[in-house]
């Protein structure tokens, strides 16, 4: 079932009642916590590389027109074609046109988040093409008619028993009594099924982790090798990438590679990192005869001009998702959009409109974990705060919350009154909590005390205490 961003609260409640999902998420969080020191500790230059990656992307974005034009010229020089597309509709039509020009019936697909953004598969299938996802996780999701719940671990929400059931349901040509207990069995079965698809596909569609302006190359990283088979065996290779994926030079791509897999899966580097430039050369024995690069805007130029430019540095590693306590409690689907977790809370309002996604930036404890682990140092909490401002100004959030904030703002600008109010509230809370030492329920904070108790306050207000410990000064 496709969930919407506006129903985040209900989605979250449902996710928290789902025991299977909760155990999968708990394992992800535990693994992520344990892996982090190993990942970062093995490469003493990690922090310097993050700084460099930020500098690379900032420089590229500040000169984006130049690097895209350079990229285009080099793709053409290598014998490829470049298609500029304003939005999802443009990109879908362009890709369909390339497929029909090639007389294609079957399409093999590599994992690509931007293709999820433009709902490419449904469109191609509706237009008569047989489209098969080749990444193991994405293949499972395609059979189940589900969307990825994590940027790099798309099927993280599923248990192996559910996957085994899906395989039995769809792979009806196989013995129904075959063993499918271990991930090993299912991987082997998917390998056999998908091998036929690779070999028969007319068109291969992949995303790109990076685009390199100076050579017109695309960079695709995978662990399975499906990206390579997808871009080599079919007669036509189509790459779809958003415009912010470009970097100036090969060396820039190499610097970013040193932090990408590390942040995504805790690996030094993925098994396969391929730099592909144009179609098959005249004397090559294999490779596609046509190479098409779709350069998609889909809201990026809007982000470039405003307060959200920093988010265009994102390399889709999913580190913010794995590290986020909110994502860890509800999973990716609860966010409704293509991207869950902190990156989704910032990107989905931009892609779908803040009016359709305002609850997402609210779904944060502002613990700062996402910004701490983001290899590109994207200030995700700050950007979520910016979206909250915008949602508040457009009166999208709940009237009760707006009234509460207005009241607080009014009081906070009147220090004497505010301190008096704080002292009174403190006494009341202390009185209410004197027997147990904590409060089960607090008026106007029912959502907060729904899942936890509030410890009864001890001592005086912050200002009173400051005055006592720092005579003659006031906290500012």
């Amino acid at each position: 079932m496709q969930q919407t961003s506006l129903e985040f609260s209900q989605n979250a409640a449902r996710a928290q009642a789902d025991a299977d999902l909760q155990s999968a998420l708990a394992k992800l969080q535990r693994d992520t916590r344990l892996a982090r020191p190993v990942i970062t500790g093995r490469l003493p230059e990690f922090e310097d590389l993050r700084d460099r990656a930020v500098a690379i992307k900032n420089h590229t974005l500040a000169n984006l027109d130049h690097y895209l034009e350079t990229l285009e010229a080099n793709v053409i020089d290598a014998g490829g074609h470049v298609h500029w597309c304003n939005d999802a509709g443009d990109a879908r039509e362009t890709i369909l046109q390339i497929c029909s020009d090639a007389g294609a019936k079957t399409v093999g697909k590599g994992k690509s988040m931007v293709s999820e953004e433009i709902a490419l598969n449904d469109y191609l299938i509706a237009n008569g093409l047989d489209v098969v996802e080749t990444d193991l996780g994405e293949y499972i999701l395609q059979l189940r008619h589900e969307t990825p719940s994590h940027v790099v671990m798309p099927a993280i929400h599923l248990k192996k028993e559910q996957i085994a059931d899906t395989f039995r349901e769809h792979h009806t040509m196989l013995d129904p009594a075959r063993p499918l207990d271990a991930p090993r069995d299912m991987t082997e079965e998917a390998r056999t099924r998908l091998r036929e698809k690779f070999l028969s596909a007319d068109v291969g569609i992949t995303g790109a982790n990076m685009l390199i302006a100076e050579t017109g190359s695309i960079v695709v990283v995978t662990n399975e090798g499906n990206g390579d088979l997808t871009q080599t065996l079919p007669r036509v290779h189509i790459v779809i990438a958003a415009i912010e994926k470009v970097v100036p030079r090969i060396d820039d791509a190499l610097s970013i590679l040193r932090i990408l897999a590390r942040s995504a899966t805790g690996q030094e580097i993925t098994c396969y990192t391929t730099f592909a430039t144009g179609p098959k050369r005249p004397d090559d024995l294999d490779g596609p005869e046509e190479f098409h690069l779709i350069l998609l805007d889909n809201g990026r130029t809007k982000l470039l001009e405003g307060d959200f430019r920093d988010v265009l540095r994102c390399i889709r590693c999913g580190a913010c998702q794995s590290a986020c306590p909110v994502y860890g409690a509800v999973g990716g689907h609860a966010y409704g959009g293509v991207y869950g977790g902190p990156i989704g809370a910032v990107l989905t309002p931009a892609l779908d409109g803040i009016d359709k996604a305002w609850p997402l930036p609210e779904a944060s404890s502002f613990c700062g974990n996402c910004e701490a682990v983001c290899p590109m140092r994207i200030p995700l909490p700050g950007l979520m705060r910016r979206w909250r401002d915008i949602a508040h100004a457009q009166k999208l959030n709940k009237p009760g919350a707006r009234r509460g904030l207005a009241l607080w703002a009014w009081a906070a600008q009147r220090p004497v009154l505010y301190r008096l109010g704080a002292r009174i509230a403190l006494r009341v809370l202390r009185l209410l909590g004197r027997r147990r030492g904590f409060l089960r329920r607090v008026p106007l904070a029912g959502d907060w005390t729904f899942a936890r108790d509030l410890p009864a306050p001890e001592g005086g207000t912050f200002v009173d205490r400051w005055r006592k410990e720092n005579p003659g000064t006031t906290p500012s």
Partner: protein
Amino acid sequence: MSARDDILGRIRSAIDRPAGTGAPPPPEYANRSLIPRRAQGGPAELTARFIEMATEAEISIGRVAESNAVGRSISDWLQTEGLPTRAVMSPDPGMDAYGWENAPGLEIRRGATDGSDAVSITPTVAGIAETGSIMVASGPGTPYTLNFLPETHIAIVHADRIVGGYEDAWARVRGNGETAAALPRTVTLITGPSRSSDIERTVTIGVHGPKRLRIVLVGEIESGDDGQKT
């Protein structure tokens, strides 16, 4: 207006760079090298690190002192592992020198593969110490399918082609001032056999690409080499 003009127009207005501004000056960071320490060192140190990192990436390694012992080493390994001894090999003439006449058990075909070959044998551009990766490049003598379709991929790495970092390996394929069209269609860093963790985060080996990656490392590194070249 075309979508190209639309997009470039919106970008130029967003970043305040009017059309015709030209190339930006080289960014400040580009003048500073940031190669990790572990990607640096003398030949013996780099070879040792390459072996260590490749082993960690579940690549098995065989060593021979001379090129003409490669064929025999491959034949022995395939038989020990109980693997098929028919293989497809890159047509590259450089592959002729590996003493295939000393490996009578091997049956070798040269060319690309359509997926029906169980074992492939390919050359490499370089071995990369920092992550134990090998670099392969496609070309008329090195079809790309050999690196991906067979269940067993055997790659030959010369010890004198073990480099420190990714940049050093790239320098071997780039040459000076080459155009995009002069690059190989594909340049790939391979770091272990194909794998996936998509089912309950359990690592399984051999998803779409090879289930086994074997490196035959050719040549000896004298322990005294370090210090002369670093």
